């Protein structure tokens, strides 16, 4: 039964993938000016431009171009980067672990702070912790990530000297560990170099905190709201009236039910994070896919930007799918209904 539900969710994600591909295709064909003239170079003659147009298939009808595009995607061909001359897909895959490391560690940190904060605020409405939660949720969504990032860098690197130089994933003293997972901290430990893992962890702290501060707000807000709703429901009152301990009521009865809407918000939170990771990567010179796209943008190199938009779109659809599946797995009512 559960497998069937998960399969339904999988099918439901297909139109979104299709939508992402169509939009990315439209964006590739909407390049400023004539793409053929652009790829032929500034000094190209009219014939050379026509030749490039035929080579790129830009003289074909739009529908045929779309199927060519699909075919290229199926082969994993996202084009070549003009600045580095490397296939875009290969470069994206090479840099993806750095971005994912940032996103997932920040998510774990944000949840670790936001969930208890939301629960405490809901159990003591009007108390100082509720006020704190209110301030955090309102301020959190107003903070531009680049502002928080720079502020943290100024305070913890320049003033206090606690953090290492906020540039890149690793102090230039170290060389990257042999790649196993692509996550430097884990790879460093696997390679038996705790010093390297420690250095990588220190580099990770500021960007991760910057990002966590940004997504703390929606998670805490949703936890508080849904905890409040659950705590005033009949089954919690019954549980209390039956003399169950405060801890049992809060965790087993209330929190488990309150988490469901929070899990749903995680989809939106992932969207925020993938977007803000671009900015955080620029602030901290983090060599992920976001800074790759920015570098390409600055150099008017469009294939990497388009590859990046497509990759982020598909990644986001997959993460949403993961959230949906997680929801099915933790919702205690699914089995009853099915």
């Amino acid at each position: 039964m559960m497998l069937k539900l998960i399969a339904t969710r999988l099918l439901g994600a297909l139109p979104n993938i299709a939508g992402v591909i169509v939009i990315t295709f439209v964006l590739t064909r909407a390049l400023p000016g004539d793409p053929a003239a652009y790829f032929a170079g500034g000094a190209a003659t009219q014939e050379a431009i026509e030749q490039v147009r035929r080579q790129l298939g830009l003289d074909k009808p739009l529908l045929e171009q779309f199927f060519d595009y699909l075919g290229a995607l199926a082969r994993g061909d996202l084009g070549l980067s003009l600045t580095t001359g490397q296939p875009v897909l290969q470069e994206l895959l090479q840099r993806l672990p750095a971005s994912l490391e940032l996103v997932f560690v920040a998510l774990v940190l944000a949840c670790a702070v936001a969930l208890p904060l939301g629960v405490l605020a809901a159990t003591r409405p009007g108390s100082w912790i509720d006020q704190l939660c209110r301030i955090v949720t309102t301020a959190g969504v107003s903070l531009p990530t680049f502002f928080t990032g720079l502020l943290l860098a100024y305070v913890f690197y320049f003033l206090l000297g606690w953090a290492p130089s906020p540039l890149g994933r690793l102090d230039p003293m170290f060389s990257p560990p042999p790649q196993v997972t692509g996550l430097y901290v884990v790879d460093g430990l696997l390679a038996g170099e705790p010093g390297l893992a420690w250095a990588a962890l220190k580099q990770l702290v500021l960007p991760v905190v910057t990002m966590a501060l940004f997504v703390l707000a929606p998670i805490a807000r949703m936890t508080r709201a849904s905890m409040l709703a659950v705590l005033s429901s009949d089954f919690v009152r019954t549980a209390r009236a039956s003399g169950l301990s405060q801890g049992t009521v809060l965790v087993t009865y209330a929190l488990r039910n309150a988490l469901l809407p929070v899990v749903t918000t995680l989809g939106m939170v992932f969207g925020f994070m993938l977007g803000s990771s671009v900015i955080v990567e620029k602030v901290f010179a983090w060599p992920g896919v976001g800074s790759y796209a920015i570098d390409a943008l600055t150099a008017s190199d469009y294939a990497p930007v388009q590859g990046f938009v497509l990759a982020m779109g598909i990644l986001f659809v997959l993460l949403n799918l993961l959230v949906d599946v997680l929801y099915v797995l933790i919702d205690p009512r699914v089995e009853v209904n099915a």
Partner: protein
Amino acid sequence: MSAADPAKPPAAEPALPGRWRAAPSGESERQRAWGLHVRHVLSENPITLLAALMFALLVFLALFGPYIVPHDPLASNAAVALQPPSAQHWFGTDALGRDIFSRVIVATRLDLGIAVSAVAASFLIGMPLGLAAGFFGGWWDRIVSRLSDTIMAFPLFVLAMGIVAALGNTVGNIVLATAVINLPFYIRVARAEANVRRNAGWVEAARLSGNSDWRILARHLFPNALPPAMVQLSLNMGWAILNAAGLSFIGLGVRPPDPEWGILVAEGAQFIVSGEWWVSLFPGGMLMLAVFTFNLLGDALRDIFDPRRRT
């Protein structure tokens, strides 16, 4: 749910400002009740009043900023480059000796201008699309919903990057990209409002008295969808400012030397590690205050229009 209950006749709805809904009787009575409610919301949360004052200040700076700043925001002077805040230069000077205070103030117009035009565009396009989708249903609904789902299938900031990169690096395209990524929110609000009301008694009554579908949409359903849309509008403003500033921070849209908060922060980013904090942190702080103002206003509007949805 919105303030208006579809089951009751329009006369029993909570009072809305008179210009949105002509009240046949008890106009002054109703306005008095409305005024009391607004005052109650304001007194319960004094921060709202602060937000309203901040908002007035922002509008003033956007309108008159260029005429009141102490220095020319574009005039560079190498003799006073990178100076910390002083009586002469309140926010210090940047690497070219330009006065940061003047640049931050003058930037207000561009930042608010981008956000207002983008949000207005999403509102003007999204509301009719959403209302029609919710009211007519069928294939029209399927197309509009698919469109908004497809936009939402992207991380929105990334989609905005892609749009600006594809269409060209101009301020106009920043507005367009910001409008596109905000569109789904209005479509969803309007669709939901039209959907729950399309079979309400007063809609039937309006139809029976000879109103066309489009007239019902414009004159009867649109005013009902306005309160939640206004809340969305205010929350979106903050978000649109953040988004536009983020795009120019990564080098899209606004070109130097035009002052804009995102670019000003980007220009100062390299000086943070050497301790010249004022170049980035003043424009960043101003940006944060502006976004904060709009978010607080959005919360306040929600409290005023829909007390039940408070969190």
